């Protein structure tokens, strides 16, 4: 808003910066709160500020169940992401490249899990596991997560495949590349940015999923489940530590990827 004129200073132009600032504060307060209270020297409940300490950060695993839940979430996230990314990438390639009978129907069906409310998806899955006699636990969580991540992977990677010039793979075949070599030397590297984005998205979705997990976890506690349960008696400051750490990690990933792509662009510009 650098172009306002003093002659016609309207109420809107004056209020907009204030309004934006307020909205930003509103958005950031919970994060800042979480971060600040990760340093709180609390005993039982972490609601009132007692005093500053680093103990929560140095002994994260002291609190009952925090680290266990965190590692469960990591395990679920990694396994579900790997499954969803591999299957989703293959499906995306098939859907974008080959014409077959049920192609458009499958494309449509893949959108459904994204459009369905999570409650419905979670409850439906729970019913399925029950009737199939699969005991709820780590396995069912992973299956559920892989399932709802799959749609996102397919959509993300499919866009990338669609923009890939088929002539490149043809050139690879023309230059004596076997189908496997063409895939690994040409198709895969060119799809990699899309696949990476899809994997990160999957992991993020899996890591903070609560609703679907809640329906299918049995006794197993993922991090969001742990925080939710703990909230009843007061969330331990160690949970704030993990939440902050995850937030910082995500921030670092974003910043690093921005910086490296900027650096690469600069390097390319210099070469040219």
């Amino acid at each position, binding site marked *: 808003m650098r172009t306002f004129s003093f002659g016609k200073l309207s109420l809107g132009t004056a209020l907009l910066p204030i309004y934006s600032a307020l909205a930003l504060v509103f958005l950031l307060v919970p994060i800042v709160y979480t971060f600040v209270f990760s340093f709180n020297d609390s005993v039982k409940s972490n609601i009132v500020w007692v005093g500053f300490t680093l103990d929560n950060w140095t002994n994260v695993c002291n609190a009952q169940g925090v680290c266990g839940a965190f590692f469960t979430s990591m395990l679920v996230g990694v396994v579900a992401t790997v499954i969803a990314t591999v299957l989703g990438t293959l499906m995306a390639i098939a859907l974008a490249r080959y014409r077959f009978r049920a192609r458009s129907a499958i494309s449509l069906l893949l959108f459904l899990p994204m459009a369905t409310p999570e409650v419905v998806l979670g409850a439906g899955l729970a019913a399925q596991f029950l009737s199939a006699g699969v005991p709820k636990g780590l396995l069912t969580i992973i299956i559920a997560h892989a399932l709802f991540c799959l749609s996102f992977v397919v959509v993300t990677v499919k866009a990338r495949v669609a*923009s890939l*010039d088929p002539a490149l793979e043809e*050139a690879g075949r*023309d230059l*004596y590349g076997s189908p496997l070599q063409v895939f690994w030397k040409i198709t895969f590297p060119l799809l990699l940015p899309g696949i990476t984005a899809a994997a990160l998205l999957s992991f993020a979705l899996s890591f903070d999923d609560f609703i679907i997990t809640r329906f299918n976890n049995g006794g197993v506690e993922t991090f969001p489940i742990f925080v939710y349960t703990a909230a009843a008696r007061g969330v331990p400051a160690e949970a704030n530590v993990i939440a902050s750490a995850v937030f910082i990690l995500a921030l670092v990933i974003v910043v690093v990827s921005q910086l490296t792509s900027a650096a690469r662009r600069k390097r390319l510009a210099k070469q040219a």
Partner: protein
Amino acid sequence: MAGGAFAEAGADLELIGISKRFPGFTAIEELDLRIPAGSFFALLGPSGCGKTTTLRLVAGLEEPTTGRILIGGKDVTNVKSFKRPVNTVFQSYALFPHMTVLENVAFGLRRRNIADPVGKAHEALRLVELDHLAARRPLQLSGGQQQRVALARAIVNRPALLLLDEPLGALDLKLRRQMQLELKSIQNEVGLTFLHVTHDQEEAMTMADTVAVMNRGQIEQMGAPEELYELPKTSFVANFLGQSNLFTGPVTSSTGSSIVVDVAGVKVEVPKDRAQRHAGEVTVGVRPEKLMLHTSAPKQSAGSNSLGPGRVTDVSFSGVSTQYQIAIPGIGLVTVFAQNMVFGPVVNLGSAAWVSWSVEHGFGLLDEPERAPRFAADTDTATIAMQTRHELLAEIEEA
């Protein structure tokens, strides 16, 4: 072709009864073609006539609907493209954007485990004068440079059969000539077989041993360049390869060695051995540079045809020659190329003129020229390929 060695010599290519139907469109119809080993064969034709499709069939990137393909006497119709002793210079270049220029060129060598791929790739890049850019990515090159990389990437493999899909289209005239010479010398040196697709008839005529003119998925005529130019068999060839003046009329008489066609009341004589048909309605033609211009009625003489009088409607000077358009009542526009032997035009705009030519320069065609324009304007495959490419490049740039 998965051995670690280059082709010793070119292989001959034979297409037998090839046709290719896409859903709702026949791109190639009953194509028969034989290209002898070691020859330089040019495929010439308008946009959309099926040139690229023909190359794709030979390279194994497309399966023929009917027919068989033989390379070096071996039936490769069902052989996968990566096992065929063939390399292609793609019309859209299709360079791998994630590899350096050097790695692009070395790709085929590495796949076949040929010794010293890097050294050979550098050598090929030197040939196209791009060795100094070996470390760059294809996106950082100009269109002409990319095209030369595509050329190097195919040639470096020394395939028994090299398919070139308009490989010099993006180059300026000087570089184009230079690359033409390079190509010709590579082809001679190793005796490879080249199948060269081009829009440029001059390129086809100067480089090729044999030129085939393709139209609507079929080969209209095929032969040595001079033969094709001297004696076109169809009106399409007569006007696609250079220009021709065409006249249609019934055959009125026939002597031992020639036929006489009545063109709007004027008798035009054509040698029998230069006419495809000797009776009925026949279209005869003559090249514009074979015509002589006269400012007065030429003397009727045996061995010569003349038309006129007409009016000069256009004079355009083009350096070595001047092109005249002469409107002759009942016959239409006649084009004449006259060498600029004297200063200024021989006849002036609006003045009366006659044309004549000697009988042995005329030719008789198999068909009649079509009235309607032959080709609907649509986007050619090259443009579409370029568009797709630019979209991809833009996206990669963003990522």
